[in-house]
């Protein structure tokens, strides 16, 4: 059987985030295909529940990609997004799941080099930690 590919979900804002992804593609960057991008209007829309449900549905890692904090299209959206992600991270460590599985990133639409970096960071985490196992099976 072939090696299991990791599953990484990325919530990506429609303003700077998706433009960053687009520019990365158009400048010829290649990255791992395990990323599953889901568009949200703003990272402030992302709720802790979305991230947790994605982990529950089988994602190994989840990241949120928003605008730079001082350059957010909706002014404070990516700051709100980071708050939710930090909250989820603190919650994960309580239930015994590695908080590294969830991460928040910021990029502007001109930072083409940033997206492949994000992808490799998150796929590395997903590969290293493997799928989330039910708690009873853990030591």
């Amino acid at each position, binding site marked *: 059987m072939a090696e299991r*590919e990791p*599953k990484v*979900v990325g919530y990506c804002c429609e*303003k*700077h985030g*998706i*433009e960053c*992804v*687009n520019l*990365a*593609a*158009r400048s*010829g*960057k*290649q*990255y791992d*295909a*395990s990323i*599953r*991008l*889901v568009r*949200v*209007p*703003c990272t*402030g*829309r*992302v*709720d802790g*529940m*979305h991230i947790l*449900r*994605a982990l529950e*549905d*089988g*994602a190994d890692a989840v990241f949120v990609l928003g*605008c730079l904090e001082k*350059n*957010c*299209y*909706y*002014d*404070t*959206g990516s700051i*709100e*997004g980071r708050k*939710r992600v930090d909250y989820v991270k603190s919650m994960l460590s309580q239930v015994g799941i590695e908080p590294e599985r969830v991460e928040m990133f910021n990029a*502007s*639409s001109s930072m083409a080099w940033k997206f492949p970096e994000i992808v490799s960071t998150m796929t590395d985490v997903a590969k290293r930690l493997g799928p989330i196992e039910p708690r009873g099976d853990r030591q």
Partner: protein
Amino acid sequence: MKRRIQVVICRVCSGAANVLDVEKLLRVANEAPYVGSAIAVNYACNAKTIAQIVEEAKSREVDRMLIIPCSKSDVSPALFQAYKKKAKINEFLMETVDLVGEIVLPHRDNPARAQAKAESKLLAAITRMAMLEPLQKSSEKMRTKNVVIIGAGVAGVEAARQATQAGMHTILIEKSDKEVKAPGVVMPKTRLVSAKGHAGNFILTIEAGEKRETLECAAVVIASGGDWSDAKGPLVQACGAKPLYRLVQEIGEGIISREGVVIVDTPDPKADITSAQDFAWEDAIQSAIEIRKKSPETEVYLLFQEMRALGLDELSYRDAADLGVRFVRYDKKRPPHADPKDKSKIVVIDSVQGQTLSIPYGGVYYASIAPNPDNVSISEALRIPMTESGGLRRGSMQKGPIATPRPGVLVCGSAQFPRSENISRLEGRAAGALAAQLVSTGIVEFGGSVAEVTPDKCSACLTCVRTCPFEAPFIGNAGKAEIQLQLCQGCGMCVGICPSKAIELHNYTDDQLSTETASYIGGDF
């Protein structure tokens, strides 16, 4: 509500044909639930093809459309318009999938995985598509076509000219009683007190002299400029340093000191300065050039920590150097100061050469412009955030360099941070034109994919009211949160933070996002 989706793949522009198996994608789409038709075309933006797609849409009675074109930003808005008009499909039931940017280009080295990923992306998009609801935008008429400009400086006057040229009615508010040559109405000794409303229909309260008046307008341009009063600092006390605009005036009047002119960045060199942007360097260099041209025997020194002339003004560095203007870079730890023995000299250590210079001077001028103290009241009235250095903050660069976070309010000139005269003029022109563009339609569009409160779930905790950067939510008469649609920008920040889950963002509901994610995770690749 019937749910029949038409999937349209553009073979050429989407780049799918090079890497992906389009026929297989079509098969996958056709087998998916709710799909009424799936076709692949060459050039989806071609008029003939549009007719063919519309024909297909009508015969299959589809009510929603999933288009896979080149990319959302390139051509799709035009496509959407065409399908909306001809196939009578609700604009909120049409979406694009960016296969090129997300799959074809970044995974072209691995076609097998790219194909599997594209298939599951398509299925996830179809899942989302089936859950979308048709929405309608509303509109209201603008009550006036006024453009109010705050501040009759260089930028404000230029904005008034540009907006008048475009057929708008401008009202220029100026706090002093100086003479202003500008088209439209000029109101001297007037200041802004408060503002209500939204882009297209603002209601401002102004204070003209002793009297308070209300003023309706469609757009506001802030051109409050900088603080032109004399700054404080050791160089002002010791050497009588003056602001740069005095030098410009003196050159205009032909008064040039023969003993030498020193232009320093700030009157308080030890203080923290935020960035090289905070100085009107272009004007400083131009003044230096002019002095050398008019009075070649006058030595001109430019003392700076960091210097940045914008754009083509960079060329003036060389012009200035050729004319013999001396550029001296100093270190903040060893700032320029008046010679304790001889007050007519200024001492500075050149941080590049390490040399100590003792410069005789006839006049010292500083290139910094302090932020306007009126910015505080303007920012409070119009609800615009301020920068750390006391200027008015602009919004994201994606909105453009002179847009504030608040729609319908533009900011130009030194109100943001110090600008040279030339750039203030250009920004004023841009602000006038943009305000005119906003107002010229005469209609305010709102609604669509915006937030809505379910009153039964709302506990009136005010979290949304505090979170929204646009101040759209408020507590209504029923004691529950309500969203003012004209102000809602559809970002969904209140939705994500609502502890009672009482707010929903149309077409980005929790259910829609989670189902789409689950479907995408379900794909194996």
